[in-house]
């Protein structure tokens, strides 16, 4: 038995019989050399697959098959509400990250200041920071648009019966997402630590406390005490920028993935 490597697929002879130019030969040898080490062919296959999927000619949809298009097209805006809320979510993520550079979730008062650090940072963003006024405005309005789009999306799904048979679990996921969106909005509403924010925190705290049995525990977990203060703001901040973004993004991915898998429920 020889210790020389054997060429199982007889590639040498194959290259010889191709009668290649020097450049072609060099390319092919390099490709084979790299493929032997990095399995390039697998990635080429992936690329090819992606290419054909991008240029896929979709099979005839229900709407086209039954020629509902003339009745369907003016409902189309209602069918884009889900993606509109995702677009608003992306805008919120970008503007929120930019706001996060300048905001500080501290409800304590610095020496020589009248208002809390959080409120002063909010004022700084709105009055001193270049483009800061617009930035906060975008973040706020995108939030309003997202909540509105999510509500209308739910109404569209309800009134077209799109939650029916194979899609029950996705409806449940959607309800969870709506509740989380509201929590997102609430926790963001508290962050500027102005009058309304403070008293909204107060009301939320009282609501949590008045739940029987788990009330006090829930108030301490979410608001960090029995009256709004520095711990409340910190917890709302962590909820708003750390916990909810991960959870909501993951759930949106699952929600859209299920829609992708099951297809859009078209009107009949």
């Amino acid at each position, binding site marked *: 038995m020889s210790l020389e490597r054997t060429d199982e697929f007889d590639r040498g002879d194959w290259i010889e019989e191709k009668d290649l130019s020097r450049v072609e030969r060099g390319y092919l040898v390099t490709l084979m050399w790299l493929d032997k080490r990095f399995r390039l062919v697998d990635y080429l296959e992936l690329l090819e697959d992606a290419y054909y999927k991008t240029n896929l000619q979709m099979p005839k949809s229900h709407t086209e098959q039954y020629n509902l298009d003339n009745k369907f097209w003016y409902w189309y805006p209602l069918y884009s509400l889900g993606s509109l809320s995702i677009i608003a979510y992306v805008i919120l993520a970008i503007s929120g990250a930019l706001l996060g550079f300048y905001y500080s979730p501290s409800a304590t008062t610095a020496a020589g200041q009248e208002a809390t650090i959080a409120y002063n940072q909010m004022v700084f963003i709105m009055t001193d920071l270049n483009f800061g006024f617009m930035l906060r405005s975008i973040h706020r*309005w995108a939030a309003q*648009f997202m909540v509105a789009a999510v509500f209308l999306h739910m109404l569209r799904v309800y009134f077209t019966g799109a939650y029916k048979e194979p899609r029950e679990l996705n409806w449940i996921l959607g309800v969870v997402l709506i509740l989380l969106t509201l929590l997102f909005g609430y926790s963001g509403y508290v962050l500027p630590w102005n009058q309304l924010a403070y008293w909204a925190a107060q009301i939320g705290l009282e609501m949590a406390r008045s739940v029987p049995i788990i009330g006090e525990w829930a108030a301490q977990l979410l608001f960090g005490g029995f009256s709004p203060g520095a711990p409340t703001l910190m917890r709302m901040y962590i909820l708003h920028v750390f916990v909810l973004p991960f959870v909501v993004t993951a759930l949106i991915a699952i929600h859209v993935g299920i829609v992708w898998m099951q297809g859009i429920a078209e009107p*009949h």
Partner: protein
Amino acid sequence: MTEHTAIDDGRTDAEDVADPGSDDPDVRTDGGEAIAPAGDDSPSFRERKERTDGLSRLTYEYFERSRREDQVLRDDSDYVERDVLGFPAWPHEMIRNLSITSFFVGVILFVSATMPPPLEAAANPTSTPAVILPDWYLYWSFGILKTEPLNLELAILGGEKIASDRTFAVLLHGPIIVMLFLVPFLNKGSARRPVEQPFWSAVGVFGVLLAFTMSLQAIVNLMAQRLPLLTADLILWLHLSIPFLGAVITYAVLKSMREGYMYDLNRRYYRLRPPR
């Protein structure tokens, strides 16, 4: 058989089954009746192993079977798959999506440039503002908090309330949210359009109107101040009856629409298949 007899010192299988371990009653190494009672049908390890094998085999057989069924359905179906049908993803779908996206982003930017948020006063724990309101999308929840008259006093408890008004209002959120979760399990069937399901559309309209009236309920104290004829109780009952009214109207309208809708469908059907 030969191995078995060799191990058991010449006893036959028949003896083994009839009287296990009875050759010497004083020396019993199996723990006696208390641990393994006679006639116990708990499975041996071999049987357990076979059962788990059986489960995976069952799963495999089920998959095979469902695949075969799918193929049969596909063969029976008269749906003809053609080579090139609907719109391609690029450029048709992508251009539509991009234009919708840029329009929506443009609207957000325009609105936020023209209507920026005001610079509110800093938090002051010592002075409660006259009007406390959350963002608009939580008005419904805030309105539910102001439904004390619904928290009935029970005669059995001597006119006392089971829950305090506040606890009652907070717990009232529960059933509403649970109803949302239950929707797909209560409304079944293949009806999709509102005309085909007047009742459930009426339920939906009831929900939407209730969200609106509960949002109005959030400012019930302001309304009671401005409109002297309306007491707070009257406003609450108005807010609960408007959704019912809306639901009834929706039901009636859709029901009468359905007559015409079904007539149209029937006419098409009978044109295709005239009655004998």
